[in-house]
């Protein structure tokens, strides 16, 4: 196996008079992999990215990015990475094209190649028509796409994306997902992506690390993580309420019955049992169902299983807690 593109060992960041934002993180991201770093607000995602991109020194522990130590070989690390941090850091008074040319110059791209590279990236992120407009007139999605283009100017091997789709509409989000997938699959770029969106991690990431209170509480492929917390559940609600017991008897053949408020539900024993077989069994017994649903475990179930809280709103709860503490 090749050396990891990103490796962190017991990485810690303790703020002065503040919390331990990152509390001993171990991770290894393989070259060409999309690694989703999933967690609520305040979990330590951005602090981790800042340490891995050399913007913030760790309090303790170590990390290597592209084979270089983030503390002692910062310049070499920066040569191999691109980063689009949480806020699209753009100058509202410059145009998209001016941003790209400035970035290309500062990245040391030869003068003769700058225009070509800028045009290529503007086209790739769909900003060719808006290239000569000042960024202050861009939508949130356009700013994010320009931010991504800027991170790619020097053809980095490793790309850090810190909540790249926060605040974007679904169309912009989908477009960005497509570009990130393409970067990994076609260009072989390693992507370290932080997100608080379950769907984003599920759709994009080859592997997911779930972070809470500065610690990784679960790590694996989305499918493996979901499989770890439980099997799929089928819930059937009979058309006639008097048939609930019969429905439960039939469902019992397929696994372990679990509580259901309106009908009967079963946690499937065998991952290969399909919804169709259950429908056929109910039909065979002459039972009319009002509704049949297959519930598959989500990454939120994984988060719930590992932390006792739901990811949706977990950050808000933390922030409210902190506000109450400081009040």
């Amino acid at each position, binding site marked *: 196996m090749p050396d990891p593109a990103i490796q962190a060992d017991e990485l810690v960041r303790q703020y002065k008079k503040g919390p331990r934002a990152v509390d001993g993180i171990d991770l290894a991201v393989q070259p060409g992999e999309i690694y989703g770093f999933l967690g609520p607000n305040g979990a330590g995602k951005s602090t981790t990215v800042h340490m891995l*991109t*050399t*913007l913030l*020194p760790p309090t303790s522990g170590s990390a290597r990015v592209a084979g270089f130590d*983030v*503390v*002692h070989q*910062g*310049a070499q690390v*920066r*040569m191999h*990475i691109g*980063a689009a*941090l*949480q*806020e699209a*850091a*753009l*100058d509202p*008074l*410059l145009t998209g094209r*001016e941003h790209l*040319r*400035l*970035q290309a*110059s*500062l*990245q*040391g791209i030869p*003068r003769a190649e700058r225009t070509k590279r800028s045009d290529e990236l503007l086209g790739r992120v769909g900003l060719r028509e808006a290239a000569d407009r*000042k960024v202050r007139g861009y939508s949130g999605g356009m700013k994010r796409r320009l931010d991504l283009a*800027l991170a790619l100017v020097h053809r980095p091997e490793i790309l850090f994306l810190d909540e790249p789709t926060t605040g974007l509409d679904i169309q912009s989000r989908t477009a960005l997902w497509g570009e990130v997938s393409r970067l990994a699959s076609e260009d072989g770029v390693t992507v370290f992506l932080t997100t608080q969106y379950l769907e984003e991690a599920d759709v994009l990431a080859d592997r997911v690390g779930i972070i809470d209170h500065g610690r990784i509480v679960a790590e694996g492929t989305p499918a493996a993580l979901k499989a770890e917390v439980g099997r799929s559940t089928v819930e059937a609600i009979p058309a006639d309420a008097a048939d609930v017991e019969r429905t439960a008897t039939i469902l019992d053949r397929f696994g372990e019955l679990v509580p259901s408020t309106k009908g009967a539900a079963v946690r499937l024993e065998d991952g290969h049992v399909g919804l169709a077989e259950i429908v056929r069994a109910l039909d065979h017994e002459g039972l009319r169902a009002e509704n049949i649903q297959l519930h598959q475990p989500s990454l939120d179930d994984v988060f719930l299983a590992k932390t006792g809280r739901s990811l949706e709103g977990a950050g808000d709860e933390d922030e409210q807690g902190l506000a109450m503490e400081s009040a």
Partner: protein
Amino acid sequence: MSAFADQVYVLGRRSVVRTVRQPANVVAPLLFPMLLLAVNSGGLKAETNLPGFPTNSFVAFALAVPFIQGALFATMNTGTDLARDIQTGFLNRLTLTPMRGIALLCGQLGGVVVLSLVQAAVYLGVGLITGVRIASGPAGVLTLFAFAALVGLAFGALGAFAALRTGSGEAVQSLFPAFFVFLFISSMNIPRNLIEVTWFRDAATANPVSYLLECVRSLIITGWDGEALALGFGIASVVAIVALVASSWALRVRMARS
């Protein structure tokens, strides 16, 4: 062009482009000093009748003030631009490139120097149109431009230091009234030897801004006054060096990447 020179050039160009695209940053340093010049020249013209007043043209006497006022605006513009870069995360973006920190400072201040030269040209142009004759001649005009650039650099570096230390545009803006106090308790409106109130004369004498004004004034009114030039250039150079060293240090701290 070396990588460093290229970095300075593109960052300097950005600084100029940003300034030009913010009309208030161009108009204010040109308009307000000229308005003050017009008001003072009208209201304080009688001063020229005082025995010992160095010229019979109050415009020639007061023309030094816009040079220093313009530099104060440069302080604000440089500082607020840098503070905005810090607040928006743009500095982090620059930090992640192989850019040398000093290139950012040089580029930013290079833009300020360009603006200072444009301002100086406008102030001198207005002076010449209103009948002021430069006693030190064409070489004096060149010296005035050099001085304007140096003062712009010095004050711009002060603004950069304030921005890099605080990271706040508001903190930089709050310096403006403080700098104006220095301007008002100087020999801005009357020669020091004609100030009768002792404490004010002493304050103006201790105030370095007085010597910056007198340097400009000497080139316009007197001709070549070695002492005034040495004091003016000397003070501006010291301020520039101290501010540059301080802002370089503050930038290093701000860009504390590993």
